[in-house]
C-alpha cells in the first residue's frame, strides 16, 4: 500500500505508541487522585504539556489539552465569542477555513453573531488590506488558519497577527496542518490562541491542544471537574496526552530534516505529473505552501473516479478534505480560489509523509496518467479528437 494522504491522518509513530502504553496498564491512575501511582500519570500529562510548549515556543501553562483539532477550534471560537459578548459580536474568518472553524462560525451566526468570511486570491491567500478594512468596533475575534489542509497554502499569519494586535482583537489560528510539520513560534507570531491535533503529526487520534496566551480569557467549553486548571473538564486522556507529547518531542527534533526529504519527493511528484498529464492545474501557492502537499485538478474528469482507480492500485489519496468526502459538493476551498465547479470537482490531493519513498512517487507517476486517460475517455468534456 502506498499512503499519500498524510493531511487526512497519520499513523502513530512507534515511539509514540511506546510512550502511551504504560498508561493503559500499570500507570493507569487518574491524574487528579492523590496517591503515588496517580502522580505518575499526572507527571506524564505535565511532561507532555512541556513538550508541546517547546514545539510552539510558549510556556507549559499556556497549553490546554482537548479531544482533537475540532474541539480546539470550537473552543477557541466559542470561548472567545462568549467571553467577549458584551464587547461585540463580530467575527472575521476566511472562506477557506476547515469546517471545524467555518461551521462553528455558522453556528454563532444563528445566535446573534455576525461573521465576515474573507475572500482569498487564486493561491488561497487572505488579503491583509481587506482584513484590515473588515475590522469593526464590535469585532472580537479573527480566526485565520495557518496552513490550508487541502491546498497547503500558508497564510501570512505573522502579518495578520500584527494587524490584529493594533486593533486590539483576539487572534486565533488553526494550525492543525502546520504544527509538527513546520517550525512555528507563537511568541514570534503573536497569536492569542492556536489549535493543533495529534493525529496530524504521528500522534494519536482523539487528542489535540489549544494554546491560550497568558492573560487571554475565554469561556470554558466543557464544564465539570477541575482538570486543566478548571478550563477543560473531564478525566484526562493520559495515554493520548503522553502520545501527543511524544509526537511533539519527535517533531521538534526531526521536522527540519523531514522537510528537506519530503519536499524533494513532492516536487518530483509534481514535476512528473505535469510532464505526463496534459491539462492539469496545480492548486495552492507556488512557494508559500506546505512542503508535503500537492493538490491538483485533472481537467474534464471527476475526483472520486481517480481515487477509486488509485485505490485499486493500492494508492491512498483524497479529493477535497477527508471529513467532507461524504459530501457531494466540490471543495469550498477550490471554489474560493476561483476554480469553476467542474474543474474543482476533479481535484486530487496527494499529501506526503514520513513513510513515503522515491519508489512511491514513481509508482504514482506510473499509474496516474493511465487513470487520467481512462476517465477522460469516458468524459463528455474531453475532446477526443486531440
Amino acid at each position, binding site marked *: 500500500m502506498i499512503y499519500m494522504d498524510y493531511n487526512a491522518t497519520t499513523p502513530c509513530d512507534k515511539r509514540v505508541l511506546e510512550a502511551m502504553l504504560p498508561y493503559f496498564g500499570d500507570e493507569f491512575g487518574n491524574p487528579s487522585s492523590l496517591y503515588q501511582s496517580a502522580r505518575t500519570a499526572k507527571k506524564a500529562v505535565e511532561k507532555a504539556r512541556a513538550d508541546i510548549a517547546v514545539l510552539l515556543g510558549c510556556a507549559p501553562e499556556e497549553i490546554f489539552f482537548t479531544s482533537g483539532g475540532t474541539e480546539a477550534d470550537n473552543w477557541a471560537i466559542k470561548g472567545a465569542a462568549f467571553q467577549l459578548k458584551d464587547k461585540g459580536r463580530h467575527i472575521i474568518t476566511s472562506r477557506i477555513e476547515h469546517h471545524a472553524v467555518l461551521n462553528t462560525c455558522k453556528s454563532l451566526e444563528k445566535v446573534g453573531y455576525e461573521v465576515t468570511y474573507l475572500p482569498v486570491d487564486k493561491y488561497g491567500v487572505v488579503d491583509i488590506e481587506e482584513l484590515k478594512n473588515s475590522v469593526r468596533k464590535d469585532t472580537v475575534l479573527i480566526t485565520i488558519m495557518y496552513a490550508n489542509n487541502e491546498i497547503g497554502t500558508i497564510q501570512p499569519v505573522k502579518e495578520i497577527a500584527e494587524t490584529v494586535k493594533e486593533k486590539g482583537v483576539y487572534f486565533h489560528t488553526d494550525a492543525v496542518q502546520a504544527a509538527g510539520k513546520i517550525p512555528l513560534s507563537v511568541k514570534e507570531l503573536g497569536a492569542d490562541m492556536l489549535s493543533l491535533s495529534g493525529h496530524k503529526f504521528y500522534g494519536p487520534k482523539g487528542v489535540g491542544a489549544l494554546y491560550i496566551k497568558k492573560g487571554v480569557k475565554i469561556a470554558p467549553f466543557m464544564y465539570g471537574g477541575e482538570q486543566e486548571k478548571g478550563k477543560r473538564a473531564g478525566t484526562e486522556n493520559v495515554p493520548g496526552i503522553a502520545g501527543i507529547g511524544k509526537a511533539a518531542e519527535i517533531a521538534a527534533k526531526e521536522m527540519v530534516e523531514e522537510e528537506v526529504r519530503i519536499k524533494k519527493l513532492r516536487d518530483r511528484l509534481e514535476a512528473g505529473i505535469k510532464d505526463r498529464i496534459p491539462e492539469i492545474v496545480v492548486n495552492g501557492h507556488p512557494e508559500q505552501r506546505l512542503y508535503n502537499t500537492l493538490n491538483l485538478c485533472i481537467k474534464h474528469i471527476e475526483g472520486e*473516479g481517480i481515487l477509486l482507480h488509485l485505490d485499486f492500485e493500492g494508492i491512498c489519496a483524497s479529493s477535497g478534505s477527508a471529513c467532507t*468526502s461524504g459530501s457531494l459538493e466540490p471543495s469550498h476551498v477550490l471554489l474560493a480560489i476561483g476554480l469553476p*465547479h467542474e474543474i474543482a470537482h476533479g481535484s486530487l490531493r496527494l499529501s506526503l509523509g514520513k513513510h513515503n519513498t522515491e519508489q512511491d512517487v514513481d509508482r504514482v507517476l506510473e499509474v496516474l496518467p493511465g487513470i487520467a486517460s481512462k476517465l477522460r475517455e*469516458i468524459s463528455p468534456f474531453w475532446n477526443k479528437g486531440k
Partner: protein
Amino acid sequence: MEYTDKVCEYFRNPKNMGRIENPDGVGTVGNKVCGDVMKIYIKVNDDIIEDIKFETFGCGAAIATSSVVTELAKGKKIEEALKISNKEVVDFLGGLPPIKKHCSLLAEDGLKAAINDYRDKQKNSAPSPIKSEDKQL
C-alpha cells in the same frame, strides 16, 4: 464509500463507453444534486435500440450506473427501454450507499433524454406515420 463489488467491477470495466457518430438520439443530463453530467447516445433501428453509448463526468456510482443502464437498454424496444428505472439499475448493482442513490437517477434520466431526443428528431424530420421506413432508406 462502501461500493459493492459489482459497482467496482462496472466502474473499472464499464461497457458501452464512448460516443456514437451520427447518433439517432443524444441525451445530456446534469445531476441536480451534485452537478455531474452524463451523455447518452443511441442508434435506433425498427424501434429497437441497436447501439447505445455513454460519456459520464461523475462519481464511481455514476459511471457504473451509466454502464448498467446502457447494457439493460441495448437491444430493447424503445417502449421497454423507457421502463428501465433507476431502482432496477441499483438493484442490478446490488445496491448503492444512501448518499449515492441520486447518482442512479442520472442514468435513468440520461436514457430517457436520449430517447426523447430521438423521438423529437423523428417528429421533425418525418412528421408522417411512415417515418421509420423513411429512415431506413
